[in-house]
């Protein structure tokens, strides 16, 4: 075996050709193999191996407790039935809208908090702790509390009432879906009558977005804070010498510097959002008319309530693809695009 066989060797300095031997190779790379080997093995089995198994199950006939990997006929029928079901369509709608709203709110909140904390003259550590604290709580616990808060007749509406605000939103009990475009889509897209759910924004979801943002904005803040701390002070000085106002400094100088942080936050929170389960289960469950149902709940119910292991696996694969939509461009950017 030569060192050239392994692509990793490109990372380190090229070894002299003269002494190509196993011992030389091990001397160079032994530590890497030692450190990476077990991880790669465990990842290979427990992540990629089980992803492959899940894909296998998703095209099988496995329903019930006995394992049945007999291929389905037609092979993708589990997927086609699942994708046509009103519930799963609602789930995809919900998770998409949830992710967009949640990322926006969490990032904006996190950025504002980061600027405030970064510039606070005293108690910076205290505020950082305060805003990061919700992140350390369990989703199940916060979900239950937020459910109480968003119970219309006993929760936050009482505060609105006292403030003299007349609105009594139904929060998580509101079944309304606003901006339904499914009718329009059906006329525009040929074969559009495959849509069996209302494609709009379920109002009940907004309460869940608020709860999730409350919990994770602190995380975004922490990453932004690290980014802000890394901006050289000379930049701020130079900007102020050039007469930039604070707002201009943050918009034109700090923000571009924080782009890597922003991408990191979007990727991490994005996949957390796509896999939402515990917060929603504890807070609103399926919601009225599946208004807050998410694929995670669907996977659990299909797999362990209905014992339809093939449908549960198929939904898991769809979730994985959704996460892939977020992760793959990031990977590409990091390892291919980032080089340029």
């Amino acid at each position, binding site marked *: 075996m030569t060192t050239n066989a392994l692509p990793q060797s490109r990372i380190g300095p090229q070894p002299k050709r003269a002494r190509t031997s196993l011992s030389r190779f091990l001397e160079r790379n032994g530590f890497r193999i030692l450190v990476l080997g077990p991880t790669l093995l465990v990842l290979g089995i427990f992540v990629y191996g089980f992803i492959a198994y899940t894909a296998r199950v998703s095209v099988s006939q496995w329903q019930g407790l006995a394992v049945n990997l007999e291929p389905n006929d037609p092979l993708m029928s589990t997927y086609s039935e699942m994708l046509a079901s009103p519930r799963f369509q609602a789930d995809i709608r919900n998770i998409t809208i949830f992710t967009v709203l949640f990322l926006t709110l969490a990032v904006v909140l996190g950025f504002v908090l980061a600027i405030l904390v970064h510039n606070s003259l005293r108690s910076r550590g205290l505020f950082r702790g305060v805003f990061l604290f919700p992140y350390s709580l369990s989703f199940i616990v916060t979900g239950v509390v937020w459910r109480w808060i968003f119970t219309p007749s006993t929760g936050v509406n009482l505060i609105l009432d006292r403030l003299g605000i007349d609105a009594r939103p139904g929060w998580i009990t509101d079944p309304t879906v606003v901006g339904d475009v499914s009718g329009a889509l059906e006329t525009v897209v040929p074969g559009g009558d495959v849509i069996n759910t209302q494609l709009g924004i379920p109002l009940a979801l907004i309460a869940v977005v608020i709860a999730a943002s409350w919990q994770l904005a602190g995380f975004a803040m922490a990453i932004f804070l690290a980014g802000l701390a890394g*901006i050289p002070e000379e930049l701020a000085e130079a900007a102020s010498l050039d007469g930039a106002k604070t707002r201009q400094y943050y918009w034109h100088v700090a923000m571009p510097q924080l782009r890597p942080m922003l991408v990191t936050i979007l990727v991490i929170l994005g996949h957390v959002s796509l896999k939402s*389960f515990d917060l929603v289960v504890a807070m609103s469950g399926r919601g009225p008319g599946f208004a807050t149902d998410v694929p995670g709940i669907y996977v659990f119910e299909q797999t362990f309530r209905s014992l339809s292991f093939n449908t549960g696996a198929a939904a898991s694969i769809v979730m994985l693809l959704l996460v892939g939509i977020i992760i793959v461009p990031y990977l590409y950017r990091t390892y291919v695009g980032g080089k340029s």
Partner: protein
Amino acid sequence: MKAIPKTLSWKVLAALLALALTAAACGSDAETTTTEAEVENSESATDADDGDEPTAEDDGDEPTAEDDGDEPTEDATSSTGELEIFSWWTSGSEDTALQALISAFQAGAPNADIINGAVSGGGGANAQAVLATRIQGNDLPDTWQSGPGGRLTPYLEADVIRPVTEVYDDAGFRDTMPAGLIESLSVDGEIYAVATGAHRGNNLWYNKALLDGAGVDAPAGDYTNEQFLADLATLDAAGVTGLCLGANQAFAVDELFENILLGVVGPEGWAALRDGDRSWDDPEVREAAEIFGQVLDYVDPDASALTWDQAILRLADGTCAFNSMGDWAYGELINSGAVDNEDFGYVNQPGTDGVFMLVVDAFVVAKDTPNWDLAKVWLTEMGQPETQLEFNIAKGASPVRNDVDTSALPPYQQGAADALAADATALSIVHHGEPAFQTVMSEAVTIFAQTKDVEQFVQALASA
């Protein structure tokens, strides 16, 4: 302040990414991890069994289903060994009830040990998920909590439970337990489980003060759906919320529909629907759906934010007047300080007088258990009158034997126990349906509650 070197920050990001990717790939919830762990455990246990000579140290191991069940274990007759029982009874009253079963078993098999493998949470959902993975890993408990009807089907299909008919014959259970119940625990002439007690599913609870205040007569045994709807309208006109509902949990809405349906089709129609002798595309199912839709018009607007127990507490505190829920609600009402027949009353769901909607807990036995003798003791003791009484006092259910002295039970449970012995029975679909159908019905109910589209609803049920 120093800038983080760009290369370092990229390395940090790469590390974070690896973390994120791992998390992403690990699947949607912790259950997947459990699956892997369980499979891993059982495999390593099996490997150890295959590879090593049996040693004297073996008694430390959990009994695995790998052993050949036919061979009687060495000390079977003297009833030593360990029996693993698996349930989802972990809360206060449930645990007390379970302890009653355990002490009865220990009296019957003083030299045996018991392993209590209870898993908490989710009204049994977590436990059933754990059980499903254990079955796939071939690491079964000796006996586990199940139920009648469709609850047995997956276990029979996977061929992991054994008949317990001989327990019924030896202990004389056939003469003292309701025939309908035994039938629901039987498949092809063999009985597969022993029941610990029966809850009644078809109760309509009401707040007496609210009804009085609105001038509504307290409902009696012959209460009909027409009267029920009229009363809901009267309450509504008086500004009272008619129906409490814990719609945050799907089963509570499903149960409301199930109870209304039973009131329309009656016990024979119910059995026909369950057995598939009658299509769900049936005029009476449509009628029940219509009534269900009308009843839903009077639901507490907060319903989607409430669990079933919060909903019954709202009935107790006078927020809403009626609640359709199984008799586990009785304990919640009493614990809240409400007084039976003073603050609240109850009647059978309209149209279901003389019918007992069975919600039953029962224990099945693993097919290949090496501890069948202990399991027999467990089941036999479970069915004894004293055990049934003690268990059901704690659990708030009714003993399934007709020869139990019920005078020690609270008034509601005495009445329910008498009704169980006398009434026709219907087996709950929400609690004991086939898992796949149960899910379809639950999803159809969730959609119907918004759309009120009877045709779509009935077709969803019929095509399942």
